[in-house]
């Protein structure tokens, strides 16, 4: 008997149903040793098969425990030139950028099981209009949202709307000293961004967070950022440096700080690239089976993509792959992230 759940729109065609039915009945018939019971037994088996195949079952898994985080790298493009990151070096061509409707559909399909939707980049606020559309949809669907930004494009109108929606804004800050800031950002914008962070604090209050990347280059700066956050009563988190194509060096020499018993995000993360490609983790490509994306939300339904055999096999490998991405904050319990 099949326990595999299929959505209606994902149902295979009629011939597949016949094939499945015959496949179930043929071995079962051999078990019926009383000829006069053959017909009723076939009838009962057909009823059971029909229930398993078509009886509706709720799409919400784990009975209300929301298990997934949807992470959308809305763009590779960025207005900063941080040496820690190389994503900005490969901005997606305009014609390959995902239409926002596809992501909204994806969000709607998954919202029952999402505890959070996260927007990252590049710099997400290059697509400020799209960010606000997602934020409003997430609010309607009752999904908490987190946007990770460099803060350059923050303004009063955006912050005021964002505040009303109740979502979290995380600003990436690796130094609070002007010279280091400008060095770490690759742009001389300390005097522009710092006032925006203060404005964000004023408008967003507790909805504003600061996150720093810990590497050998930033190690001396992080305690100062932490102290600065403490003074301004802003929640703060440190993330280990990861290989996103930048030149910064890891403080833990590329090794994994956690063992195999540490839960991995593989089971929960659903990540979308700027062109709509779906992966279980942005470090996916390190796994041979996962070199190619699992699918693309512009072409396929997200649940159809997640239910493929390769998707589940990749999840299994990722559970014990112990790649450096296990150090990332997506593997930490949410309650421990900011303090």
């Amino acid at each position, binding site marked *: 008997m099949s326990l*595999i*759940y299929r959505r209606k729109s994902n149902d295979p065609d009629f011939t597949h149903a016949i094939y499945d039915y015959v496949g179930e009945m043929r071995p079962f018939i051999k078990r019926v*040793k009383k000829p006069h019971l053959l017909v009723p037994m076939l009838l009962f088996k057909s*009823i059971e098969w029909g*229930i398993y195949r078509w009886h509706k079952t709720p799409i919400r*898994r784990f*009975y209300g425990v929301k298990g997934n985080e949807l992470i959308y790298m809305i763009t590779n493009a960025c207005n900063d030139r941080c040496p820690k990151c190389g994503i900005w070096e490969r901005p997606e061509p305009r014609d390959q950028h995902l239409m926002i409707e596809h992501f909204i559909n994806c969000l709607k399909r998954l919202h029952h099981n999402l505890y959070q939707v996260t927007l990252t980049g590049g710099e997400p606020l290059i697509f400020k209009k799209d960010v606000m559309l997602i934020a409003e949809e997430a609010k309607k669907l009752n999904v908490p949202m987190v946007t990770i930004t460099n803060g350059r494009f923050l303004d009063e109108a955006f912050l005021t709307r964002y505040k009303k929606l109740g979502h979290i804004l995380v600003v990436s800050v690796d130094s609070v000293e002007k010279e280091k800031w400008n060095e770490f950002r690759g742009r001389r914008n300390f005097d522009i961004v710092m006032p925006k962070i203060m404005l964000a604090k004023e408008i967003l209050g507790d909805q504003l967070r600061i996150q720093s990347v810990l590497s050998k280059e930033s190690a001396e700066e992080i305690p100062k950022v932490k102290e600065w956050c403490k003074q301004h009563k802003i929640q703060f988190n440190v993330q280990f440096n990861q290989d996103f194509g930048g030149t910064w060096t890891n403080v833990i020499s590329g090794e994994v700080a956690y063992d195999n018993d540490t839960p991995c995000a593989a089971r929960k993360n659903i990540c979308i690239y700027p062109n709509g490609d779906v992966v279980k983790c942005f470090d996916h490509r390190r796994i041979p089976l996962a070199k190619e994306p699992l699918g693309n939300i512009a072409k396929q339904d997200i649940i159809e993509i997640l239910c493929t055999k390769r*998707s*589940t096999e990749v999840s299994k490998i990722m559970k014990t792959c112990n790649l450096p991405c296990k150090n990332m904050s997506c593997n930490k319990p949410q309650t421990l992230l900011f303090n």
Partner: protein
Amino acid sequence: MSALIIPCYIKSQWDINCLYRLLESVQNQTRKFDKVYLVDDASPLKYELPYDFAEHILLNENGGPARARNTGIERALASGIEHLLFTDHDCIPEKDWNDQMTGFLEQTSFAAVGGMTYSWGNTIYDYYHNINGTLAGKWLLPDKKELWYMPSLNFGMKAFAAEEFPFDERFPTAAGEDVDLCLRLRSKYRIGFCPTATLWHDYGYKNAFTGFRKFVNLFKKYKSSSATVYEGHTVLMWDSSESIYKGNMYESNLQTKIQ
């Protein structure tokens, strides 16, 4: 040392009769249980226990059979029990059931065991369940040397496995929680099959006419958990399995028993 854990939710006189019948068969086991935990999951109907060998644990709130079994597991582990067996109030184990199940766990390297389950009644639906193997577990194919899954009504675990793999209390009803447990357990250990550990299950069909609705509702209940189980175990679910019935219960190479 072995313990029996029985979760129960008593809502009718039929349930009480079933429970008394089970306790009688537990009392008559050729190998006595060191502990018997009857975990009442906040039943709406009150009842007295005619036997004093069972520890009657009354839960304040209904939390489903997974929570009830976990309560029993906690007590058993705290008492130093080595082998934990599980059944339901509507079951009747053969006299040597504990001997067979516990003996299997003692003599083999399997971390868990399932026995052979038959229908207690004589209706056409009972016949169906017998040949369908509805509650008789599933072979892991192609070798049929271990189980893919075993329903919790005829199930046993060694203490270390029970400690490591409790039931998932997010399953609110008696559907899917045992499949989930077995799939998690199989990620690390193996579940063996003991065909000589016979247990009877009373589905409660009175006759072919009145039983039809019960029959349909039974499978609807099982189906209701399938999405949950599938989402949690997408990879392990790909393994092929075959339900066990009398005709294939000895197809396994039982030499694995002495591994």
